[in-house]
């Protein structure tokens, strides 16, 4: 049960809210309070477009607890249009193969459950082939 932890990340999970550095305009996701580009403090919120492309991907066959029912599933590094990279599952793939460079967009999906019927179901961002 990790309710507070997932609750406080809801802006990131549901809307890809990161930050933009007020000093150097660097776009930051996931949010962190020190700009990784210039080292100054960065706390200005910035909502990402959710568009990007696949930098790399893998199909996971041996799933950790909480993800068993989804396996096999595909996890990718997504290079967002605004610059940063995020780790996210690819979804709605159908029969077409995934390729590096494939354009994708963010959608909201069920991510995991706590493994028992009283546990938390976590929702958040995944990415699908851009439509």
């Amino acid at each position: 049960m990790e309710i507070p932890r997932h609750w406080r990340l809801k802006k990131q999970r549901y809307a890809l809210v990161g930050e933009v550095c007020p000093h150097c305009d660097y776009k930051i996701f996931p949010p962190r309070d020190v700009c990784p580009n210039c080292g100054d403090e960065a706390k200005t919120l910035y909502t990402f477009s959710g568009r990007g492309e696949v930098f790399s991907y893998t199909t996971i066959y041996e799933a950790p607890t909480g993800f068993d029912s989804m396996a096999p599933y595909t996890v990718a590094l997504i290079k967002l249009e605004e610059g940063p990279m995020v780790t996210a599952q690819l979804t709605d793939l159908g029969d077409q193969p995934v390729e590096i460079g494939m354009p994708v967009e963010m959608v909201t999906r069920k991510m995991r459950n706590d493994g028992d019927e009283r546990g938390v179901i976590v929702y958040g961002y995944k990415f699908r082939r851009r439509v």
Partner: protein
Amino acid sequence: MTDVIIAGIGQTDVGEHWGIGLRDLAYAAVKDAIADSGGLQPQALFVGNMLAPNLSNQAHLGVLLADHCGMRGIEAVTVEAAGASGGAALRQGYLAVKSGLVDVALVVGVEKFTDQVGGGVDAAMATTSDSDFEAVQGLTASGQAALLMRRYMHEYGVPADGFAGFALTAHANGVGNPKAMFRKAIRVEAYAQAEMVSAPVNLFDAAPNADGAAAVVLTRSDLLPNGYPHALVKIAASAVSTDTLALHDRHDPLGFWAARESVEMARHRAGVTLDEIDFFEYHDAYSIYAALSLEAAGFAPRGEGWKLAAQGAIARGGRIPCATMGGLKARGFPGGATGLYQAVEAALQLRGQAGACQVSEARLGLIQSLGGPASTAVTHLLEKL
């Protein structure tokens, strides 16, 4: 400055020790290391462990092991840096003795994977990545390696069996190591047919999680007992670097920056060139990590680390022998004990006690312990005096 000597070494068999718990596993290695040192009495204990709080519901290993090993009362703490915990603990022991504040330090790495099975182990391993932004997506340790391997193969045009040489070399070397988990050579056909763990990482690209404990006793040369029987092995340099925790936060994920930086610092501190290094115990938790580590250390240009394996340069007798006693792939990956296994194996090589695995005239060994995809990199240079 004072030389820090690896005076005693001990290690258990690596494997599935269903009948032996965490504390008894650690004691077996500790007992052997102290006996091997000629009976030195430690004043401080540093424990390298990655997952005992998750897998065995046991934290606070410092006092547990000091008490259990008959050293009640001494300074004792756990050092944790994921897969680099063993290397990080070794560094703490080194710093303690090097500083002169501790005369004899005991460092033990111990991991007990088989207290759990299945998805629980993968979930525990995933806690060493960015829990909020990587593990929550179902990304596993193998998955991180796979993301790097896929990108590497894409950028550098590596064929499907391009990484086979790492597993083949490791298994060939493991045959001669009586402590290794796997002591059977494999053929390239077996690699090509292996099932996927996390595509493109297959079963032979991934080191097996295993139970094990390894220990070293560190001291200064003037404190060695009379009649000390072994060739002297000193820690010539010790260095740690960190990168971002999450892969997605790196501008250059294939650069293995921390691995590069820690090797450069260690070489600089010891005044050693790459050519002088006789063997390299890299952290081949995954074959892609072996390739990237070879490049980061400077043994191969970017994109060409895999060729060293394909061409036999990492074999015993090759240009830079690696995984000389099986590496993580064949000796096994006992989590936070791994860095201590590397130290014990390197000491055996430098003493000339490596048996069938012996690298001839080994004088200088490089060992590197990685946490995650080189999120933490701990590098030591060991030298025969």
